[in-house]
């Protein structure tokens, strides 16, 4: 319950403050969003599995976002363009998909 409220508060805050993203950080935004979604869905699944852990959640969120951003940066510097970020999106996408499937099994028993 607190989690949902916190999420909503963040959304409201973001819409209300409407910050401008620096141009240098713009390429990292989509990847950061995907990484954050992975952390959130992982947390929800862990909650439903009754093994949720705050520390694990916080650390996984921060490290996911940082590593994803780092990989995109590395791809830019190496000149492989968006291909490394494609890799990040694939891995995180698979994880999100699997976790959502597990959440679905929990909620609907199907």
């Amino acid at each position, binding site marked *: 319950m*607190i*989690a949902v409220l*916190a*999420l*909503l*508060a*963040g*959304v*409201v*805050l*973001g*819409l209300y403050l*409407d*910050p401008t*993203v620096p141009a240098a950080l*713009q390429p990292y*935004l*989509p990847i*950061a*969003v995907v990484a*954050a979604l992975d*952390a*959130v869905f*992982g*947390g929800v*699944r*862990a909650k439903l*599995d*009754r*093994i*949720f*852990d*705050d*520390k*694990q*959640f*916080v*650390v*996984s*969120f*921060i490290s996911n976002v940082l590593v994803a951003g780092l990989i995109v940066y590395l791809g830019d510097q190496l000149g492989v363009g968006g291909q490394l970020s494609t890799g990040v999106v694939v*891995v995180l996408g*698979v*994880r*999100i*998909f*699997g*976790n959502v499937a*597990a959440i679905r099994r929990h909620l609907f028993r199907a």
Partner: protein
Amino acid sequence: MSDSGSGRGRRDRTYAPDFLTELFRNPLDPGYEDAARSRVAGAPVWPARSVSAVVLVVVGFLLAVAYRQTVAEEPGRAQARAGLVQQIREREEESDRLSERADALRDEVGRLRVQALGGSEAARLRELEAGTGVGRVRGDGVVVRLADARDDQDAVTGAADGGAGPDRVIYSDLQRVANALWGAGAEAVSINGQRLTATSTIRSAGDAILVDFRPVTGPYEVSAIGPGEMRQRFEGSAASALMRQVASKTGLSFGVRVAKDLTLPAAAEPRLRWAGPPVDPSPSGSSESSGSRTSPSPSGGGR
């Protein structure tokens, strides 16, 4: 919980060599299980519950910012495109309007001139205008059609005629045809609706053919108004023979047909060129350089 969870509980947290299979089988961070196990074992629970809430606030913030960013970027692209399309439409309308107005004004000038001049003078003027290409003319004549060869025959081999075969109509073809038509007695000639006058140019710029500095594209139709025997004379000309040979060798198409009641448009208003002594100290003529007042300075740039 998936079936693999119980199997891997015993193992230490090491990544399987087949990372992708592991990823598909068990997408949850293994850390959660470790944490649950250590909690059962009685390890101290991380106290900061509120840190999770803060992280979730950050996640929500991130989502909102990303949403805003995406929404803000989209209209920029669409607007630029829509703006360009809009501009093109406006300019086209304006150009249509202006050309209509030019036609109307030209008609009015013609009418007023007929009124001002006598009947015979006006008729003579009309004759001259028709001859020089300034006036619109109508009559019977021939249409010579030239078209580029289809490039399907050299799509595979790269080149049909040893690579250098001219399978496109080039500017000199049009020049030759136009000159042959004039030679065959044409009174008025136009290329793709572009009237030729005594000062018209047919040139090439890169791949494009320019008639009077305006690009024309294939298929090219050279229309000419002239006497009835113009077609026979044109067919007998060297240019026609050459073009027929070129057409039979390459895939170029070349055809001559008699056309009834052709209407050839007027050429663009010719730039008048004149000379006169400059009157003011700083004349607008661009050729004024040495300050020789009395010498006539050509203005209007040589064409």
